[in-house]
């Protein structure tokens, strides 16, 4: 049985999601006004990355079980 690609993929997106979200909460809000039309894209997409990573990771685990 080979390594299921969803395992590293899930972990990668979970990690990136956490980094983005944490940075989104701690960074200076001014950078969002300057760049992304005032939206805190780091929090928003950090959550998307996290949820995507969690789903993929869960699918890999479920198949293994």
């Amino acid at each position, binding site marked *: 049985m*080979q390594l299921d*690609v969803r395992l590293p993929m899930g972990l990668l997106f979970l990690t990136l999601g956490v*980094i*983005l979200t944490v*940075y989104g909460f701690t*960074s200076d809000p001014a950078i969002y006004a300057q*760049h*992304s039309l005032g939206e805190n894209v780091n929090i928003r*997409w950090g959550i998307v990355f996290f949820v995507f990573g969690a789903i993929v990771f869960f699918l890999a685990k479920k198949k293994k079980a």
Partner: protein
Amino acid sequence: MIPLFAEAAPLNAASGSSLFLKLASVDYIILAVYFAFVLGIGWVLRKYLKTSADFFESGRSLPAWVCALGFIGANLGAQEVIGMAASGAKYGISTSHFYWIGAIPAMVFVGIFMMPFYYGSKARSVPEYLKLRFDEKTRGLNAITFAIMTVFSSGISMHALASLLVAILDWNYNWCIVISSLIVLIYILTGGLTSAIYNEVLQFFLIVLGFLPLVLIGLKDVGGWHGLMSKLEPNMTHSWSYMGNTASNPMGVEWFSLVFGLGFVLSFGYWCTDFLVIQRAMAAKDMNSARCTPLIAAIPKMLFPALVILPGIIALGLIQRGGFTLPHAADGGPDFNMVVPALLSKYFPNGMLGIGLTALMASFMSGMAGNVTAFNTVWTYDLYQSYIKPNATDHHLVTVGRVTTVVGLIISAGCAYLAREFNNIMDMLQLVFGFVNAPLFAVFLLGMFWKRATGHGGFFGLLLGTVSAAIFHGLSIPAGALTGIKGGWIAPHWVFASSMAQNFWMAIAAFASCFILTAAISLATTPNRTDDQLRGLVYSLTEKPSTEGAAWYKRPAVLGSLVLLATLVLNIIFW
């Protein structure tokens, strides 16, 4: 790399640009995390790697969706992300023809009709199929040209990445080359093709999730698609309405050469015969998965214009609105290769900026890795095992594959420096690749669907088809161009509205002459394969693969029809 993208290729991305991205520590952390995963995958996979089949063919064990994303990821290299955005800014939504006409129909065709022969025959590579079907010399010709083209393509990819990073981050060119080759080297050495494919899957999702926010924010900023339509000339936001004649659209092409030159000859020539992509499908665990690979890949492929072309059109809308500029290219006009970096810099704060940059680097590296894995397989199986050491042990072949990976990357790096020093050499090579690719599909088509095609027919048809492409190029020229690398070096006999039009017509001419010559030479020579030898290699002598018992969405014919229908709908929406 698709040769027909040559025009949009960022050979010297952003020379002398003044656009800089300012990275923060969070961006470096994101980049480091990604590289750790890339290398980690290779490391974990190393223990599954035992035989040459594991190293070169992933042991034919992967599920269809993984192969499909690898299939699309290997193709989603430097040329695509940077070049398609540049074309979007130059030609507008018409660039989507490279997808909806120039990719999807061929991907459906290869999955439904051709994969049974590639996967079903005992061939381990596309050149090896040519050997079984035609003869040794046809294989040799294809293997040698393919091997040369892949190392050079990977070198061009490396050069594009390094010069882009130099321009936007002020990094050191040499370090960019060394580090990107080392990372690719390590994960291929440890995990072989599986490692390359897994990383292509990761990279696919990174690109989608990394560029989607960019497109969404940009689109919101310009007032949506309708806001864009109101800002731009109508021929930039309609894909077919202005294809009636060459003067009315920015590409300078008309529908006939578009449909036949791009949609039939060039597109089928790439998607149905290029081992770089076919190798991904051949790694699938069974026949049905192999056939579904290009069909599943076609689903994201048809939606990609939104990710890679739309940024170019958005940039154009922003320029029209004012307050947004692109760095200047050498000729004084805006440097469209800088569309993606400029948008990243405008819309992404630190954090997302790291993601965008990671996605960009991932796309360059997987393009490189795709070329390198295809190169080491063709070299080891089709050249080394066939001509140098026919009775090599399996263990020996894996060693050769590993050494070839190292050598291939060193040659690629050499090509990168060559491209940096002599831009013309690269233009010339891409031109020659175009000559080689143009007639290719004619030989495969006749080989697979006409059992009378012979070895001599295939070989000389291919050779003379390439020669006729070169002659066509020597006799034609885009309007206003100087004779030489653009064409007309024999005599500028036919003048085309654009080099794209010249390219499409050259493909049509090369295909037609290769088709006629292969057929004529085959009829004039005696068949060199018996019906028995051709079983599994030619349509009329091969049992149709059964899809009995497969769920409807796993049946190639159903999947293929749905993909074509959806593509038709997209064409109508953006007509």
